[in-house]
């Protein structure tokens, strides 16, 4: 199991240390290693499948890491039903994207470095899902942050990309602080930071402590998964090469927050306050992302907004109690397929269009890029939730579970999720229409063409996943049963069913058709320059609902002012005080120095005066 992490890590280190020597074969090694990890993952899956439910989880202690006082943390791994899902997703999609990148990055002279970062990411992400304690998870958590930073800033000679990378890291760091505080509370409460220990201790903990841990974990999830209020980095993260956006910022890393909450199910099950926070964040983000998605002309940013929104669905599902976790993971897996597929499709389009990302400059590409169009279309149907594609199984379940919360809460959550589905249909249809149908709007210089087999083969595989994964995962509730030992869903399966699944599906379908239909009529003709005269709503959506401006006004500007103020304070007040002491001393000595004029008679006079004053004092005292 440890090879899962060690192999890609070593390969990444090797490629970075060897430098230019490895340029010729670096990408092959990295792809091979990634495929090997996938093979190991599959082998682990089958050996786990052969066991009965209770014995499936295995731990492996690698070495003793930190042992101070009663804090004992081993570098040890936990492979259970939940983590194997992620292992397969990460290594599977990861390998496909390695293959895709061989062709996509062919003309970049730093291709070796790119593959080294990809392997680094695979290692860190696997550590994240395999760590058996919050601290091990944290190492992977920051590790993927680093890999994401490196990959977003892969073309960091462009200052805007370098800034985007930095922004992503900082936003992630804010989330990381949440995770580290959660770890600290766990240790102070339970004296341990391992999942098993915290789970055992959670039964005795005070509700306040549990809510605090839950809130901090949610903050961490919000940072990593681009949830409200830390979501602003994801759009800018599209500065990275497109395969990166597919792997890290769609399929795997950004879903780590969902993993964290699912992994910590014992905390959230015990704290209703934390659950309310989770669903609130989820709902806000799913609507937020969907609204932003409606106005983006950059194909990658539109997909990024969609990712944000879809993860909002997952986070919402994790906040719905024990039954929600499995649906969150199911949506996560199906989303991993269709969104990665669509990103690769976007990459294929960009590859054919000389890296043009503005969808207003596309149009009518379906005839020239048939494979890309078909695979993208399958992903599109999946994300819309059209039966029987993958999203239908996962997303409708989430909407249904939300309605089943009952009362005003259920209607509120379910309604929001339903509206989100409608908006999703609108903006995704917009993307498809703008890109693949209608009249051509590209300039004469471009020669759109279908990509090579190395690029379209992974897209085809992911498209098959987009079609079939939903059915496979929900057939006979297979995923729900599989995850049941981890998330303790047994006590919730018999929950009340307020809305029939069929009703929900029909409602969702209606909403989707409305959204898609509106988009088709609205974008029958498309100007190739974004119109200036648009509604306030569109303007706000184009600017990410002013999230950046808000951050600027609330954090960046005051921070800059504070920094300048403190620098001045240090210069003039603190160091000034030190200099003042020195200045006063030197001024005093300047005065005193005048007495030392070198004339004997001055000294004699002072001596005489001293004697006189001394005599006077003696006389006064004795008299």
């Amino acid at each position, binding site marked *: 199991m440890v090879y899962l992490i060690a192999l890609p890590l070593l390969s990444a280190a090797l490629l970075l240390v060897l430098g230019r020597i490895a340029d010729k074969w670096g990408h092959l090694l990295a792809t091979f290693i990634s495929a090997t990890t996938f093979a190991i993952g599959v082998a682990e899956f089958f050996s786990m499948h052969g066991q009965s439910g209770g014995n499936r989880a295995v731990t492996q202690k690698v070495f003793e890491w930190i042992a101070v006082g009663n804090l004992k943390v081993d570098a040890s791994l936990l492979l259970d039903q939940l983590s194997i899902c992620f292992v397969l997703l990460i290594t599977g999609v990861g390998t496909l994207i390695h293959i895709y990148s061989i062709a996509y990055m062919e003309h970049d002279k730093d291709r070796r470095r790119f593959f080294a970062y990809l392997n680094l990411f695979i290692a860190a992400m696997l550590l994240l899902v395999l760590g058996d304690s919050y601290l091990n998870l944290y190492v992977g958590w920051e590790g993927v942050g680093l890999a994401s930073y490196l990959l977003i800033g892969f073309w960091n000679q462009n200052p805007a990309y370098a800034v985007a990378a930095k922004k992503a890291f900082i936003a992630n760091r804010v989330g990381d602080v949440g995770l580290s505080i959660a770890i600290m509370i766990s240790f102070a409460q339970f004296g341990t930071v391992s999942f098993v220990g915290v789970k055992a201790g959670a039964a005795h903990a005070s509700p306040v402590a549990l809510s605090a841990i839950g809130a901090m974990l949610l903050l961490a999830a919000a940072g990593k998964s681009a949830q409200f209020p830390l979501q602003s980095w994801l759009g800018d993260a599209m500065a990275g090469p497109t395969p990166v956006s597919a792997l890290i910022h769609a399929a795997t890393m950004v879903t780590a927050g969902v993993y964290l909450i699912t992994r910590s199910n014992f905390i959230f099950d015990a704290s209703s306050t934390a659950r309310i926070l989770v669903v609130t964040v989820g709902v806000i983000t799913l609507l937020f992302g969907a609204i932003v998605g409606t106005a983006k002309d950059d194909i990658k940013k539109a997909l990024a907004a969609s990712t944000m929104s879809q993860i909002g669905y997952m986070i919402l599902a994790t906040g719905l109690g024990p039954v929600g976790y499995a649906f969150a993971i199911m949506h996560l897996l199906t989303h991993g397929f269709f969104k990665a597929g669509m990103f690769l499709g976007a990459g294929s389009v960009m590859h054919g269009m000389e890296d043009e990302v503005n969808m207003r400059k596309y149009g009518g590409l379906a005839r020239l890029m048939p494979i890309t169009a078909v695979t993208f279309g399958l992903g599109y149907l999946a994300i819309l939730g059209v039966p029987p594609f993958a999203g239908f199984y996962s997303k409708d379940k989430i909407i249904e579970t939300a309605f089943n919360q009952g009362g005003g809460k259920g209607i509120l959550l379910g309604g929001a999720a339903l509206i989100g589905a409608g908006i999703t249909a609108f903006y995704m249809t917009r993307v498809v229409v703008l890109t693949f149908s209608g009249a051509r709007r590209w300039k004469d210089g471009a020669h759109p063409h279908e990509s090579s087999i190395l690029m379209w083969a992974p897209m085809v595989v992911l498209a098959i996943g987009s079609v079939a994964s939903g059915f496979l995962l929900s057939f006979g509730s297979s995923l729900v049963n599989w995850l049941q030992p981890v998330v303790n869903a047994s006590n919730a399966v018999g929950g009340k069913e307020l809305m029939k699944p069929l009703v929900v599906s029909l409602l969702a379908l209606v909403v989707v058709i409305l959204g898609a239909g509106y988009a088709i009529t609205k974008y029958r003709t498309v100007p190739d320059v974004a119109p200036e005269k648009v509604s306030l709503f569109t303007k706000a959506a184009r600017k990410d609902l002013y999230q950046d401006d808000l951050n600027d006004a609330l954090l960046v500007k005051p921070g800059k002012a504070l920094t300048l103020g403190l620098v001045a304070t240090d210069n003039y007040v603190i160091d000034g005080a030190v200099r003042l002491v020195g200045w006063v001393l030197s001024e005093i000595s300047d005065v005193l120095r005048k007495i030392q004029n*070198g*004339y004997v*008679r001055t000294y004699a006079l002072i001596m*005489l005066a001293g004697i006189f004053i001394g005599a006077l004092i003696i006389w006064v005292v004795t008299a």
Partner: protein
Amino acid sequence: MDISNYLYLSVILFTIGALGVLIRRNAIVIFMCIELMLNASNLALVTFSRSNGNLDGQVASFFTMVVAACEVVVGLAIIVTIYRSRRSASVDDASLLKN
């Protein structure tokens, strides 16, 4: 016997000497003023010796005379040397150690 007149004279002589040292710049004159101060104190010593009826004060004044004589020898030698090298006996000019 009333010693106050002797002591007044001694004080006046001493003050003249001290003022001379403080005010005059010629090394020779300063020297003479120092001698004046020494002798003023000698006068006071002898006066007290007389009034006390023992010889202690007179003995002390002899010591003073000896010291004064030695001082004259060393001091004059220095002054002459300075005068030779700098053509001046002013104490203000002899400021080579300053700065």
